[in-house]
Structures are given as C-alpha cells and as structure tokens.
C-alpha cells in the first residue's frame, strides 16, 4: 500500500546519498575488519551504490512486499550475488548479513536527523522500513545458507566420485581401497564400480582394502558383506585386507565375521591372491 510519508524518505536519500554511502561503507568496513585482505574498496563501492539505487527504485514503486513483489527482484539478485561471493570466500553469516544491517543503520540515522520533529511521519515510515529490513535480513541469511548448502552438496558428490577407484593389480586381480565411512549410497557405488570392472577385466579375485575405513560396526560390515556376495555371484572371490588391530578387536567383540579370507595388509592379501590365480613370487637373491 502506498504511503504519503515514504516520499520524504526518497527525498532524504536523494539529498544525502553520498553521506549515507560514506557512513554505510565506514561501518561496513568496521564489521568486515577480519576480511580486509579479501575485499577491495571498489567492490564495496560498486555493490553499495548498486544496492542503494535498486533500493531507491524499489521504494519508488510503492510496493513494499519484499518477499513476493517483482519490484524487489533486481535488488534480491544483487544481494544474492554479493553474498554467494562472500560466503564462498569464507565470510560468516554475521559478516555477510552486515551488508544489509549497516545500510539500515546509516539510513535510519539520516532519517532521524531529518524528520525528528515529526513523530507521526517517523512512525509510519519506520513501520514500513522495519518490515522491509527484517525481510532483507532473513533473505540475506537464507542466501548465505543456500550458497553453503550448494558447496556442501557439490563436495559430497566429488567425494563420492573420488572415493571409488578400482585398481587392476595383476591380470585377474582387482583391488578396491575403501576410504571413509561406508553408507548405503557409497556401498552401491563401490559395488557397481567393482562388478563393472570384474566384467571388463574378467577378474577372478578382488581385494577389498579397508585400511581407510575408520571403524567397522555391524552396519559397515553388512555393507562389505553385500559387496562380497555380489562379487561372488559374478564368480569372483574376495579377500579383505587392511584390518587394523583395533578394528579386529571391535569386530570380534561385535561378533562380525566376513566368511572370506581376511589379511592384515594389502601385501599379504596380494600374495594370497596371486597364489590362487596361479602365480608364484620368488626372490632371486634368496634373501
């Protein structure tokens, strides 16, 4: 709904534009003290000026519904862009949020200076502005969290892709080093990668190395057993290697067993695998 007093705000912004910008930038720099290395005056200047112009235009539209009105879309885009940039550089929510809050402080002070003597105007103007800035603050927090979520899900995907290499150790012998905790999603990927490689290479043996698995509880064991069974159905035998002493102890305590050959190190498992496939290792120096 239009408000006749909001025109005063526009006039104040117009008259004191540079003043507001300067106070705002100064306060913002204070809030962003720890990120001084990552920021330039130009960047702040550019975003601040863009923001102020867009804010002005949106107010002029007399539509104060920040969340759903299209009039505010351009402003939202600018804020989102800035916050994505800052949050990916490691700024905290408080720091990214200060872009909006310091502007609010600068603007409020200017308004108070100018229309102090008119309580009615102040009341009606601030009731509109307050709602706007609350929404803006929430919006900037949301933008920050969203950009963090994007980073997290991208990294999760990268980890998944990185963590399932299947290595051909010898003709007919594959190795699959598992790193990190096994959940059902990762087990699925490991299983698919292993079985695919078994078909491609016609391998008879697969060594599952769990050196990089931090803990083996019943759930993780269940996932490993599934992988072993699937490989067995394809006609490949599995050996498990890389069982650390503590893990051996927890496995026994939990009553977990794999029903296949298990070895402490990948080297031991490899020599067993070679023997089963029909190779023999000899040391020519007889040491």
């Amino acid at each position, binding site marked *: 709904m239009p408000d006749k007093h909001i025109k005063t705000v526009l006039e104040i912004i117009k008259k004191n534009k540079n003043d507001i910008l300067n106070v705002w930038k100064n306060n913002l720099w204070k809030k962003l003290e720890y990120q001084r290395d990552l920021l330039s005056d130009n960047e702040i200047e550019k975003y601040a000026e863009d923001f102020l112009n867009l804010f002005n235009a949106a107010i002029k539209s007399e539509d104060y519904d920040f969340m759903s009105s299209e009039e505010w879309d351009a402003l939202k885009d600018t804020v989102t862009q800035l916050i994505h940039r800052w949050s990916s550089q490691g700024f905290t929510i408080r720091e990214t949020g200060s872009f909006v809050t310091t502007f609010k402080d600068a603007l409020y002070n200017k308004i108070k200076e100018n229309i102090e003597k008119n309580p009615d105007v102040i009341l009606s103007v601030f009731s509109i502005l307050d709602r706007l800035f609350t929404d803006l603050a929430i919006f900037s927090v949301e933008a920050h969290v969203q950009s963090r979520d994007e980073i997290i899900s991208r990294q999760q995907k990268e980890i998944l892709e990185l963590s399932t290499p299947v290595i051909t150790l010898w003709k007919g012998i594959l190795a699959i080093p598992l790193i990190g905790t096994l959940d059902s999603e990762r087990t699925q990927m490991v299983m698919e990668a292993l079985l695919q490689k078994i078909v491609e290479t016609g391998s008879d043996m697969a060594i599952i190395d769990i050196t990089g698995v931090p803990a083996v509880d019943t759930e993780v064991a269940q996932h490993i057993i599934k992988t072993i069974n699937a490989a067995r*159905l*394809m*006609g490949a035998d599995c050996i498990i290697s890389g069982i650390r002493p503590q893990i051996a102890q927890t496995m026994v305590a939990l009553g977990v067993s794999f029903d296949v050959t298990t070895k402490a190190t990948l080297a031991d498992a490899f020599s067993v695998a070679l023997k089963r496939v029909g190779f023999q290792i000899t040391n020519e120096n007889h040491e």
Partner: protein
Amino acid sequence: MERIPILKMGDYLLVSIQIDMHDKLAMDLKNDLAEKISKTSAKGVLIDISALEVVDSFIGRMLGSMSEISKVLGAETVIVGMQPAVAITLVELGLSLKGIHTALNVEKGIKLLDELVKLQ
C-alpha cells in the same frame, strides 16, 4: 509351449537361458533338468544366465534349488555370466545364493566344473 533347451556336452549339461524367465518356465526347467541329470548321469551342470536382465526373488530361489537338486543327483552346478545389476538386485533381496558355485563366463565355468568334478 516354449522350453529352455538342455544340451549335453560330454559329462556336462549346458543350459543357456536366452529369454526372460517367467515362473512357469523356471519350474519346467527345474523338472527337465532333474530328469535329464538322472537320464544321462551327468557330472556337472552349467547354467548360463548372461542374457538375463531381470531376476526376481522367485527365479533367484529357483536357481538355488536347481543347484541343490543337481547336487543330490550327483552333479555339481556352476552358474555363469550373471550381470552386475542382477547380482546387486539379488544381494539387496537378501538372496546371496550361499553354497552355489558361480563363474564369470562359460570358459571359466567349465574350468571350475572340471576342478569340482575332480574333487568328487
């Protein structure tokens, strides 16, 4: 009525499943295989399922029981050529077919049968 052929190769019987199995077909195959083993006194059975794209729990169980029946009749069974997707499905269904022999392809399957028959 369609049936899955059972071929005799020396001491072994060769079953190659080339079409999608439905339950009736699997039951028939089980009966035919039992008949054929006792008639030919075969020492080994090789079941090639490389063309099977879909295996449900019934077919999975049927493969297991075929293997057991053969064992009772004195023949070792090797199932060869299971597709990765099928293996994963069976494991997820909780059917890991413990106690049956598997190999990657027919060649390896015959080699495994040779070894198993030698042990008998």
